[in-house]
C-alpha cells in the first residue's frame, strides 16, 4: 500500500471537534443527495404518468419496424428493439475498431515522420498534425462525407484498386471471402501456433533469466511460427479461402461486401483526426527518452537496432501508453458522431430512432450512456494493467 505523497495530510480520526464536524458534513451531503434524487425520481414518475409514457424495459421485445442501412448481424424490420440495440452496438464497435487501427498506423507513421532527418518531410507531417487537430471532428467527418465521398463517380465509373476493391458513390466494395473445405484446419493451426509461441517465449525468458544472456532469437521464431504455421496449412490444403470480387451488373455491383459511404466517411474522419493526436503522443514519447540512454547503450556495445528495441522503445512506451489509451477511448466515444451523417451506430439507431418511436427517454439514454461508460471503464482497466507491466521497476 503506497500513499500519495502530494495529497494533503489526512486528518487522523479522533472524536475531536473536527472529526465530528466532518461526520456531520458528510451525513448532510448524503442526505442532500438522497433528497435531491428522491424528488427528481418522484417528479419523473408523475411526469411519465401525465404523458402516458410507459416505463421499464418491456419495449425491448416490441417490433422495431424500421430498416438499418448496414448491419453486422442479421436484422430486418420485423425484429425487436433488443435486436436494434445489438445492431447499433456492433456497428459502434466496428467503427471504433477500424478507427483505432487506422489512427494508430497513420499516427505512428506521422509521429515518426515528424522526427525524420528530412526537414521537408518533418515539416509536412507537422502541417498535417496542425490541420488534423485544429479542425472540429464533426467538420472533418462532414467534409469526408459531403465533399470527398460526395464527388465520387457512380458505380459504372468506379475507382478501382487491386484485388477487386471498388470505390464509388454507393460506398466501398470489397471482395467477399468464401470459405472452402478445411478452413477450419487453418484456424486450428493458427491457434496451436499461438499456444506454442507463448510456451516458447516463456521458456526462452526463463532460460535467459537462468543463464544471464540471450541465446535464442525467441521473438523472431515465435513470429515466424504464428504467421508461418497457418499459412503453410493454408497452402497445403489447397487454399481453402477464395476472395470473390463483386461484379458490375447493369447499374450496380452484385456480390462482394459493401461498406456504405457513411461508414467510410466516419472511419476516415475518425482516423485522420485521431492520427493527429497519436502522432504528437508518439513524438513526445520518443523525445522523452534522454539522449544519454542511447549513448550509454552505444557505449555498452549495442548496435543501433538493438538500442532502439531494448532501450529507447520500452522507455518511450511508458510515456506513450497512457495518453494513447485516452485517444482510443475518444475514438469509441467520438464514433457517436455517426448520428450526424446517418450511419446506424448505437446512438443513431437506439438513442435516435428507437427513442423517437417509443418515447422512453430515461431507459434508452441511461442504457446508451451505460454502454459507453462500461467500454470506457473496461478499456481503462485493461490499459492500466498493461501500463503497470510497463512501469519502471524498483524506483
Amino acid at each position, binding site marked *: 500500500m503506497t500513499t500519495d*505523497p*502530494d*495529497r*494533503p*495530510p*489526512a*486528518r487522523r480520526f479522533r472524536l475531536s471537534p473536527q472529526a465530528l464536524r*466532518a461526520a456531520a*458534513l*458528510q451525513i448532510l*451531503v*448524503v442526505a442532500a*443527495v438522497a433528497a435531491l434524487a428522491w424528488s*427528481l*425520481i418522484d*417528479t419523473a414518475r*408523475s*411526469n*411519465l404518468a*401525465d404523458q402516458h409514457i410507459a416505463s421499464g424495459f418491456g419495449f425491448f421485445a416490441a417490433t422495431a419496424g424500421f430498416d438499418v442501412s448496414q448491419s453486422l448481424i442479421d436484422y430486418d424490420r420485423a425484429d425487436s428493439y433488443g435486436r436494434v440495440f445489438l445492431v447499433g452496438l456492433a456497428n459502434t464497435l466496428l467503427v471504433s475498431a477500424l478507427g483505432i487501427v487506422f489512427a494508430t498506423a497513420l499516427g505512428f507513421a506521422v509521429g515518426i515522420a515528424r522526427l525524420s*532527418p*528530412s*526537414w*521537408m*518531410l518533418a*515539416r*509536412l507531417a507537422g502541417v498535417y498534425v*496542425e*490541420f488534423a*487537430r*485544429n*479542425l*472540429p*471532428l*464533426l*467538420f472533418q467527418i*462532414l*467534409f469526408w462525407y*459531403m*465533399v470527398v465521398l*460526395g464527388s465520387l463517380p457512380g458505380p459504372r465509373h468506379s475507382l478501382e484498386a487491386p484485388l477487386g476493391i471498388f470505390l464509388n458513390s454507393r460506398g466501398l466494395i470489397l471482395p467477399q471471402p468464401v470459405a472452402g473445405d478445411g478452413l477450419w484446419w487453418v484456424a486450428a493451426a493458427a491457434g496451436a501456433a499461438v499456444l506454442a509461441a507463448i510456451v516458447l517465449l516463456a521458456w526462452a525468458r526463463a532460460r535467459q533469466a537462468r543463464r544471464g544472456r540471450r541465446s535464442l532469437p525467441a521473438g523472431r521464431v515465435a513470429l515466424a511460427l504464428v504467421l508461418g504455421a497457418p499459412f503453410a496449412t493454408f497452402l497445403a490444403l489447397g487454399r481453402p479461402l477464395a476472395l470473390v470480387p463483386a461484379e458490375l451488373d447493369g447499374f450496380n455491383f452484385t456480390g462482394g461486401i459493401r461498406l456504405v459511404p457513411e461508414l467510410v466517411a466516419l472511419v476516415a474522419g475518425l482516423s485522420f483526426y485521431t492520427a493527429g493526436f497519436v502522432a504528437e503522443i508518439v513524438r513526445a514519447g520518443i523525445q522523452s527518452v534522454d539522449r544519454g540512454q542511447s549513448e550509454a547503450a552505444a557505449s555498452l556495445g549495442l548496435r543501433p537496432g538493438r538500442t532502439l528495441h531494448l532501450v529507447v522503445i520500452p522507455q518511450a512506451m511508458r510515456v506513450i501508453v497512457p495518453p494513447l489509451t485516452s485517444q482510443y*477511448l475518444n475514438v469509441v*466515444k*467520438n464514433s*457517436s*458522431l455517426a*448520428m*450526424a451523417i446517418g450511419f446506424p451506430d448505437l*446512438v443513431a439507431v437506439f*438513442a435516435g430512432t428507437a*427513442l423517437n418511436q417509443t418515447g422512453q*427517454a*430515461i431507459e434508452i*439514454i441511461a442504457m*446508451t*450512456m451505460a454502454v*459507453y*461508460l462500461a467500454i*470506457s*471503464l473496461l478499456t481503462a482497466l485493461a490499459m492500466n494493467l498493461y501500463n503497470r507491466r510497463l512501469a519502471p521497476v524498483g524506483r
Partner: protein
Amino acid sequence: MDKHAFVLTALKPALPPPRAASGPLKWLRARLFAGPVSTVLTLVSLAVLWLIVPPLLDFLVFDAVWRGSGREACLAETVGRPVGACWPFIWAKLGQLTYGFYPADERWRVNLVFAAAVALLVPLLIPSAPFKRLNAALFFVAFPLAAFALLVGGRFGLAYVETRAWGGLLVTLVVAVTGIVASLPLGILLALGRRSSLPVVRWLAVAVIEVWRGVPLITVLFFATYMLPLFLPGSWTIDALLRVLIGVAVFAAAYMAEVVRGGLQGVPRAQYEGAIALGLGHWQTMVLVVLPQALKLVIPGIVNTFIGLFKDTTLVMIVAIFDLLGQLRAAFADPAWASPSTLYTGFAFAGLIYFSFCFGMSRYALFIERRLDGGRR
C-alpha cells in the same frame, strides 16, 4: 621498445577548411539531401506539396469568383473558365452564418457583445497589460451577465429575441464562452472534492467526473434535451439552448477537474504544510496558497480543454441548434446558390474560421507555456 609504436616524424599539412560550415547550400545538404533515404523522402514530400498547394491556391484565389449576386455568377458556362471558390455565396450568407436568424434590426446588439468580448479579452491575454484583476472580474462575471441581458432582451427597452432565432457563429461563441466560464469554477470544485479527506465527498466527485468523462458528448446533449425535462416539475420549461449549455458546462467541468487535479498534484506538499503551520484553515490554504500555484501550473492544459470545447460546440447541431456548421449546412440547401463549387467554398470558409480560432488558441497556450517555463528556471 615496442616496434608497433607509430609516431609522426613531421607535421602533417593542415586540412583545407570545410567547404561550407553554414549557409544555404550546407543547410540544404544537411537537412534535405543528407543521404539516399533522406533525398527520396524530400522528393516525395515535394511531390505531395506539388499535388496539394497549387490546386488549392487556384481554387481559393486564382480561379475564384469574387463578385456576383446568384448562382449564375459561379457557373463555368457564365464565367467561361474553370471556376474555383464562389465567394459571393459566402458574402450573401455571411449574416446567416454569423447571427443565424437573429432579427436584422437587432444585430447591433450581437455586434456590441462581440466588440465588448474582444475589448475585454485582448488585454486579458496580454501578460503585460495592467489591471489584470479588474479585467478578469469584468470578463468572467460582468460580461456574461451583460451579454445575456443584451442578447436576450425583453428589458431596458430592448426587444425580446428568443434563443431559437440565435444561430451561426453567435451560438458557437455563446456555447464555447459559457462552457469556458462555467466549467472552470465547477471543475475546480470537483477537483478539490476528488482530493477531499471526506470519503463521501471524494466518492461523489469521482463518480461525477468519471461518468461524464466516460460518455460521449452527444449522449450528454441527448440527456439534456430529452431526459432532463422529465425530471423537472411540469410547470418548469427550460429553454432548449439553456439545456444544451448546462450539458456542455457539466461535461467540460469533468475534463477541467482532471486538468486541475494534475495541477493540485504538482504543488509540493511543503506548501500545504507551510500554510497549516501559518494557521490557515482548509479553504484558506486552498484559495490563498494552493490553487494559485496549481492553476498556474496547468494553464496549457486549461487552454487545451478550451480548444476541445470550442471544437465540440459543433455537436449542438445534432440536437437541432444551428451553430456555424449547422447554418452552413442549411445554406447549402438554398437553390439560389446551388452551383458545383458552393459546397467546396462553404467548407473552405468554415474550415478557415475554425482553424484560425483553434490554431490561435493553441499557439497562445504554447506562448504562455514558454513564458511560465522561463519564470521557473
